[in-house]
């Protein structure tokens, strides 16, 4: 009924500018999603159907080997294990933080925001320097020789690196539970422990599941960690990466990525389903300040979760400490000596790259937020046909390994009408479309709680569709826009995989430069770049949070 109404509406007033603009937006979103997601992904997959320049299933015929099955098994095993760990740890941190005073909660939230930024390989290197076979702590302090190489190394690192984002999601999830439920449970005789078990836990099921599956999709397509610390343990993503990176077997690697899709899609399906459940629950959610409530966690839980928080932040402190320490020291025959030499790495091309990277990340974050939110707006609010499919298209880049999304762009945008290789635009586009899913999901959740009537009211008061989108919907969604911005910005600043093949001397970005420094073993220099990346990303994020809380204060 709504659809018929929208259709007739369009026919009658097709001359008005705002209706025209609305159409442009709709076409623009649909068009860009096809052009910058579907087309490149299809392009790279087509390559897997070629062998020696001929159409052939050669790469697929060689795919179903025992070896590859083992790789899939390894991938699924490691990703599952790591994701369970990260989810558990994050849950502990979330629970601990949620039942603390507001300033403690805010402090934890901000720290999580900071630890979220670590570029992937930094933590791996920190782990090796500290806990490797000759680690400063394992060997240096405790005198034991640990062998971190193998699946356990991958699991440890992936678990740790997923905790920050997961814990932030957990905190958001917990804050959406009506806290009177905790009171009600205790009122009905449940002690704090039972309350946790019977009320907090079940209420968190949707959040927990979506955190888990988000982690799972990220881990299964992660190739950096297994490369650095996997030892003889190989996973599919690594194998696909190496085929491209070391063996220049692009077509075979593309075929291999196809193997990664089924588990990722299954996981993604569950993720989507559970996100829907989150929505139906959050509709009735009321946030009551925990401050005034007399609720203390049971002693055991308090100690356990507090311990997790302490250990997690200790590990991160050590990791970041190590990073900054490495940035300022030089190893002279085994003893670290203070030096500023590594800062010499900042030649003009690095400074250029840094500025370019910030520019790129800001642009990509803004764009992906806009597109993600609009996608959600047209799907959820305007009930446009086909936008459900577009939403799925928007999430494809999230579930395929980054390098393929990068290569996909190289494959289709190196010639023809849209020749973009070597430009800044291709980087921005790539980052933009890779992270659309985040803003889209956030907006979906926000729209679910935002009264539909608000938009009706603005039409009723004479604002056009676009007018009310700009003057009403976006301003109200500002907190969501900012959260999405932070997410995409952070990811764009630190991501390497997809950009590796898109950078040329003219459009170098900092994360790739750091990756190169790490690869050539110049840890001091990479630490300097890494520190700069972290500081800049953190500052920009803090600025965004400022804006966000300013908005919140006004809203109250």
């Amino acid at each position: 009924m709504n659809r018929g109404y929208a259709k007739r509406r369009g026919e009658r007033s097709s001359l008005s500018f705002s209706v025209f603009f609305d159409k442009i937006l709709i076409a623009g979103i649909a068009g860009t999603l096809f052009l910058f997601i579907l087309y490149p992904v299809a392009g790279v997959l087509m390559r897997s159907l070629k062998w020696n320049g001929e159409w052939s299933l050669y790469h697929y015929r060689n795919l179903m080997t025992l070896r590859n099955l083992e790789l899939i098994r390894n991938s699924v095993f490691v990703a599952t294990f790591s994701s369970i760990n990260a989810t558990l740890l994050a849950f502990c941190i979330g629970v601990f933080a949620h039942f603390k005073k507001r300033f403690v909660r805010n402090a934890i939230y901000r720290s999580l925001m900071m630890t979220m930024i670590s570029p992937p390989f930094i933590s791996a290197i920190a782990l090796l320097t500290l806990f490797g076979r000759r680690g400063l702590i394992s060997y240096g302090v405790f005198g034991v020789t640990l062998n971190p190489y193998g699946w356990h190394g991958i699991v440890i690192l992936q678990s740790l690196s997923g905790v920050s984002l997961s814990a932030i999601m957990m905190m958001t999830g917990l804050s959406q539970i009506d806290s009177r439920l905790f009171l009600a449970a205790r009122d009905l005789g449940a002690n704090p422990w039972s309350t946790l078990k019977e009320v907090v836990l079940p209420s968190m099921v949707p959040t927990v599941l979506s955190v888990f599956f988000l982690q799972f999709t990220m881990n299964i397509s992660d190739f950096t960690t297994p490369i650095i610390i996997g030892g003889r343990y190989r996973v599919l993503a690594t194998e696909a990466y190496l085929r491209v990176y070391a063996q220049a077997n692009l077509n075979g690697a593309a075929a291999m990525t196809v193997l990664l899709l089924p588990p990722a899609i299954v996981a993604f399906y569950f993720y989507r389903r559970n996100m829907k459940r989150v929505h139906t629950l959050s509709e009735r959610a009321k946030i009551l300040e925990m401050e005034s409530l007399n609720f203390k966690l049971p002693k055991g839980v308090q100690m356990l979760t507090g311990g997790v928080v302490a250990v997690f932040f200790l590990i991160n402190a050590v990791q970041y400490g190590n990073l900054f320490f490495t940035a300022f020291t030089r190893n002279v025959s085994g003893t670290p000596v203070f030096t500023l030499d590594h800062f010499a790495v900042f030649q003009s091309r690095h400074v250029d790259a840094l500025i370019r990277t910030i520019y790129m990340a800001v642009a990509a974050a803004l764009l992906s937020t806009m597109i993600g939110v609009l996608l959600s707006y047209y799907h959820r609010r305007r009930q446009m046909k086909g936008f459900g499919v577009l939403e799925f298209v928007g999430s494809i880049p999230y579930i395929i390994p980054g390098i393929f999304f990068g290569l996909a762009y190289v494959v289709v945008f190196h010639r023809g009408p849209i020749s973009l290789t070597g430009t800044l635009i291709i980087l921005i586009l790539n980052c933009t479309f890779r992270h659309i899913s985040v803003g889209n999901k956030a907006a979906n959740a926000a729209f679910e709680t935002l009264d539909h009537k608000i938009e009706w009211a603005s039409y009723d008061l004479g604002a056009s569709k676009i007018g009310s989108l700009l003057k009403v919907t976006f301003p109200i969604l500002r907190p969501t826009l900012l959260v999405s911005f932070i997410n995409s910005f952070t990811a764009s600043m630190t991501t390497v995989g997809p950009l590796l093949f898109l950078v040329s001397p003219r459009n170098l970005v900092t994360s790739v430069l750091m990756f190169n420094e790490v690869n050539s073993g110049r840890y001091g220099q990479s630490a300097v770049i890494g520190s700069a990346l972290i500081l800049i990303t953190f500052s920009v994020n803090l600025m965004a949070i400022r804006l966000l809380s300013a908005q919140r204060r006004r809203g109250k």
Partner: protein
Amino acid sequence: GDNGEEDVSVNEEVTEAEGNDVEEMDEEQERPFEGTVLELSVAYGGADGSFEAFTEETGIEIEWVSLSTGAKLSQLQAEEGETTTDVWFGGGVDSYFAARDLGYLYQYRSPEFDNIDEKYLDPEGYFGALSLVPFGFIVNEELIEELGLDMPETWEDLADSQYDGEIIMADPSISGGQYAILSGLIQVMGEDAAWEYWEAVNENVDYYAQSGGEPQQKVAAGEFAIGLTAIHGQTFGLMETAPVVGIFPSENIPWIPAPIAIFENSENKEAAKVLVDWYLSEHGQDILMEADARIMANRKVAPPEEMGTLNMDQLIDFDLERMGREREEILGSWKELIGE
């Protein structure tokens, strides 16, 4: 693009040079590519140290990105050779063979080829050779002492069970250098003997590194006692900061050339030729050797001092074309050997 400041500073230097020079016209003719920007894809550790000198002398500016040759080849395939890069600088020679066969490289036989052994380069001129990278061991002396191990001297020593778990080498299917060692030893030892040998070494290897540069980092960090590695400037750098030493085996030293090539798709081929000529010339080679100590391809340039222990006679007689030809077969056997 670059910012204007650099252009200005370059121009200033030029003015200075002009002031000192008597023949202004000549100067201009010698620098016909003043201000041209060449884009390089570099897989030659430390090479950037020489770019400034090149720009100063030729007026050609260099912008570069470092990318492993395997990755570059993938990228080339993805963009069907239509790269925006002009020159490919260093890296694994097998990728150059593949790129040549795919038609991505520009045929240019530099006049300097005459000073370079034909073995090192493509005789038809699709790529030249900048230098040779010899392979050997990197050993953590502290660790050797602590574990009470002997210093390894020959390839055979590595098969000794005393080194169990203390040897690290890269996966030859990933690292071109490691593949060169494998293929080289097969060429000199004969297939059967070589495979028997690698089987024994495999027993001592904990895991295979995922990049050619990793073994020396791991040995320097004290994680392993012995690493198989290319020995060049980076290795010598490590010897200053870590208790490690690079050792050449007393016989059968494998090597690979570090090639240089112009891309077929380059729009600055003339300037690129100037670059190739400059880097293959005795003068350019000296400067490059300064930036990263290697055995230079041009026979007029003597090996660097750092290579003191290297006995040039022990470099194996290496058939690069055969190395490329046998790649799939050898790597297949390798995978079987390590049980994948």
